[in-house]
């Protein structure tokens, strides 16, 4: 049973990490992440980088969908905008790596605000459908504005450089991607302790009430779209440097659905949910691949059905979580914690 969690000041009550135990776990986690590249091989580092990129993008979508209550199915397209911007700044201008990431994020934020404009008139599902339209139109731009985006062939991106050091392998990029992911998540967590973040939550809970309380709806909705797209753009920039090649097909509608699924599975409207969801959804295909590898001696066509099985599992996860665990993995985690906090008493 947890004792001694008495708070004597508002500052302590508002703290992000409120107990010593929590801080200790966090320190341990950070130490593990620091030690990870020294023990893991390239495959695991590749996965870790991918998870971190997805964590950034998912956290961004969580700001919009989980905290502001606006569903977007254009998240992958925003990511594409960021990726193309970063890649073009690198190729055409030779601008430095971190500046390109920022540029990608800002460009995506601009496009995000533009896509958010229909929220002036419509909301809820209609808005979700409008973002599908935006996603297709952006895909069309990637594909057909060939002089800039390289058309269907896409762009190949030179390796990232910081201070003359070339970051080509996941082992090197890990040191950029992971801190950025950490920073993004921390920034998002802090956002919801500010006026802006609170306004987002008010809009999610009841937008008309929020407006009556003096929150300018359009401005805050657009801000949420912009912020969310900024995260997507940042993730997209990292994506470009990570895979070193981007095509219009890198950012299909399914990828947007992937992020939405990650938000749902992780837990809408919790920062932890974004992290858990992104990690979980990224790892599921790998686990399936492993399973297929194990099953292949008995199932001759196991490899052929891997991709459809992945599609089915993906859909089942969305349905299953929405029906049985609507608050996602974050809620499961909370239950586990509560069990230990209250032990030996029943929860």
């Amino acid at each position, binding site marked *: 049973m947890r004792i001694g969690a008495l708070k004597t000041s508002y500052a302590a009550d508002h703290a992000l990490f409120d107990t010593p135990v929590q801080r200790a776990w966090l320190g341990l986690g950070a130490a593990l992440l620091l030690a990870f590249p020294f023990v893991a091989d390239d495959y695991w580092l590749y996965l870790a980088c991918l998870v971190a990129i997805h964590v950034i993008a998912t956290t961004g979508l969580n700001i919009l969908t989980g905290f502001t*209550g606006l*569903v977007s199915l254009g998240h992958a397209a925003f990511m594409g905008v960021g990726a193309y911007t970063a890649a073009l700044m690198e190729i055409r201008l030779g601008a430095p790596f971190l500046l390109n990431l920022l540029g990608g994020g800002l460009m995506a934020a601009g496009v995000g605000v533009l896509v958010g*404009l*229909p929220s*002036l*008139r*419509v909301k*809820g*599902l*209609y808005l*979700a*459908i*409008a973002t*599908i*339209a*935006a996603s*297709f*139109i952006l895909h*069309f731009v990637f*594909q*057909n504005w060939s002089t800039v985006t390289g058309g269907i062939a896409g762009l190949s991106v030179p390796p990232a450089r910081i201070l003359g050091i070339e970051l080509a392998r996941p082992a090197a990029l890990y040191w950029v991607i992971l801190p950025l992911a950490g920073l993004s998540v921390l920034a998002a967590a802090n956002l919801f302790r500010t006026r802006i973040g609170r306004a987002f939550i008010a809009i999610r809970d*009841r937008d*008309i*009430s929020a407006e009556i309380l003096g929150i300018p709806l359009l401005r805050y909705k657009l801000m949420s779209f912009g912020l969310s797209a900024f995260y997507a753009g940042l993730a997209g920039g990292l994506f470009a440097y990570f895979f070193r090649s981007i095509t219009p097909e890198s950012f299909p509608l399914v990828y947007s*659905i992937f992020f*939405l*699924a990650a938000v*749902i599975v992780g837990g809408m409207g919790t920062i932890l949910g974004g992290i858990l969801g992104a990690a979980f959804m990224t790892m599921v295909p790998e686990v399936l691949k492993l399973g297929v590898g194990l099953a292949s001696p008995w199932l001759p066509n196991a490899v*052929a*059905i891997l*991709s*459809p*099985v*992945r*599609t*089915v*599992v*993906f*859909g*089942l*996860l*969305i*349905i299953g979580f*929405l*029906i049985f665990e*609507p608050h996602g993995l974050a809620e499961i985690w909370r239950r586990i914690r509560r069990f230990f906090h209250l032990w030996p008493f029943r929860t």
Partner: protein
Amino acid sequence: MEGFDPLFFAEVTLAGLGSGALLALTGLAFVLIYKATRVVNLAIGEMLMVGAYLFFAFAAGLGLPAWGAIPLALAGGGLLGAAIERAIIRPMLGESPIAIFMVTIGLGSVLVGLVEIVWSPNPTQLPDFIGAAPVFLGEAYVSRKIAVGFAVACLVIAGFLLAFRTWRGGVALRATAADQAAAYSCGIDVPAVFCAAWALAGVAAAAAGILVGAVGGISPTMGVFGLSALVVVIVGGLDSVAGALVGGLVVGLLEAWSGTFLGGEYKIVATFSLLLAVLVVRPYGLFGTAEIERL
């Protein structure tokens, strides 16, 4: 474009009307579900695809003639719709519309995966049951498949409209759509109506799927047709049957014209631009009911 050829234009227009009728039929399936259960079903394209594959299984797999395979495929589509309603929509009753919307996205993914497992992800052709002799309207040439598709889609739509007017179940459905609580207190079994709406939508989607498959071949990705249908219902209004019909023809024409005169890649941009324009100018579509929100 060198010179304007009215005959060619007429042919393109007729082809557009043909695919527009199919879109209208799919839109009708969508509106049916939305009217009765207030669910925005993004998996309608995938239900359509499953219908087409069921026909493929009965006609090509079991070697049944078309008159045997079509009713079986339609029944299969209806069963699928009812099963979906019972298994995953019913438990979501009362949840936020956005959660239900996302459940249907997951459902679409499951259906695509299952079809790929059962029938392989490669596109195939449906066995021909329409014939290939061209049809001429005046001087304009129309592909026979599109002409038959148009005619059948019109018949099916007319059948549905008649059923809504006269059949007991159709009236119950309209009553439920108008006011659930009132329908309940009049003795209408609302859960059964929900189930029936999904089953009927499944039948309509399967019919559209067979026709779409007959025209363009089938593949697990043919569900993207559902996205065009989504545009149709947004343009027409989510809860308006007339809107689905008008919207279907409008989108069909727009797709045909933009695809022919601008190039195939402009098709999707044209339809989605129309969608955005309608959303901004008339958020509830041409014939939809404006929702009024009160605190």
